């Protein structure tokens, strides 16, 4: 079951959903709109390798905007701290942003229950597009889970700013056949 915008407001007031800062104006029928923070991350590697740490740098998106070229991939983040111990957040692009050919996440839209922090956006431009700090870029919906809740306690907990992949940390888990 998905929460309505009115229910999101109610659950924020009761402390069961965390959205900071929270502004009523960003509520939609079934989501809360997310704004773009001013930091972004690019990898310095020619070939990304999940078995090793990949080197990266963090830069600022200037007020005048950052021009993305077709095919560019960067990590960015929401200004908002988002999370819930009671509902499962799923992130989506604003359709207006998607209509510009900009992906805001690559494949992983499901946020674990109990994960609380800035959302890391995975921006992928299929067309040249300019992005600005604080622009409305994404939205988050909240879903009611079924079954006993086990809260997230993973490596990206409490993220602030864009967080690079840490897949190498658990890459060694060997397959037992």
């Amino acid at each position, binding site marked *: 079951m998905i929460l309505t915008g009115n229910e999101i407001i109610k659950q924020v007031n009761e402390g069961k959903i965390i959205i900071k800062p929270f502004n009523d104006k960003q509520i939609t029928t079934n989501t809360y709109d997310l704004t773009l923070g001013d930091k972004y991350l690019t990898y310095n590697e020619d070939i990304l390798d999940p*078995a090793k740490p990949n080197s990266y740098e963090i830069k600022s998106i200037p007020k005048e905007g950052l021009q993305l070229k077709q095919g560019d*991939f960067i990590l960015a983040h929401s200004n908002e701290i988002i999370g819930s111990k009671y509902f499962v957040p799923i992130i989506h692009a604003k359709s207006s942003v998607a209509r510009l050919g900009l992906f805001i996440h690559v*494949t992983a839209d*499901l946020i*674990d229950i109990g994960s609380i922090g800035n959302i890391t956006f995975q921006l*992928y431009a299929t067309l040249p597009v300019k992005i600005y700090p604080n622009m409305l870029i994404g939205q988050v919906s909240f879903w009611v*889970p079924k079954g006993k809740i086990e809260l997230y306690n993973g490596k990206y907990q409490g993220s602030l700013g864009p967080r690079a992949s840490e897949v190498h940390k658990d890459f060694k888990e060997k*397959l037992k056949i």
Partner: protein
Amino acid sequence: MKQIKKGNIIIEPFYLEQVNPNSYNYRINDQLIMFDIKNNKKHKKTIKIPKEGIILEPHKTYLASTFETLGSIKYAMSLIGRSSLGRLGLFLQVSANLGHTGSIHKWTLELVATKKIKIYPFMIIGQISFWENKGNISSYLEGYSKFNLPQVSKMEEIQ
């Protein structure tokens, strides 16, 4: 986990350490289908992913499959990539991530890299979540659900 015991969810083989708060981490099998494009025509090539890994070229589509047999007769499913690989720019499933209730098999995975990335056989690549249905269930028994190897689209014939 409870629904696996009841037989409502099939995950084979199943390992407790691959369970997440709202999903199960699945692995990629070792077969990969790639396409060479010549004169705007696709030519299909199937390879085995070597132990040392293989580099996926950006903006190309590859097909693989899950190592596990996954499915449910009771729930609908969503197959997505791991956030750790999304953060490396790897798309898993190109826009069709919904798994129909009743399909139980090794799922075909569509991979598109935005940057050059290495993948290894049997690495954890994605996660599957299960969604309760509202309404009567008529199981999905047609289509691609009988396949356990990566399946190309049936919408067109490929040479």
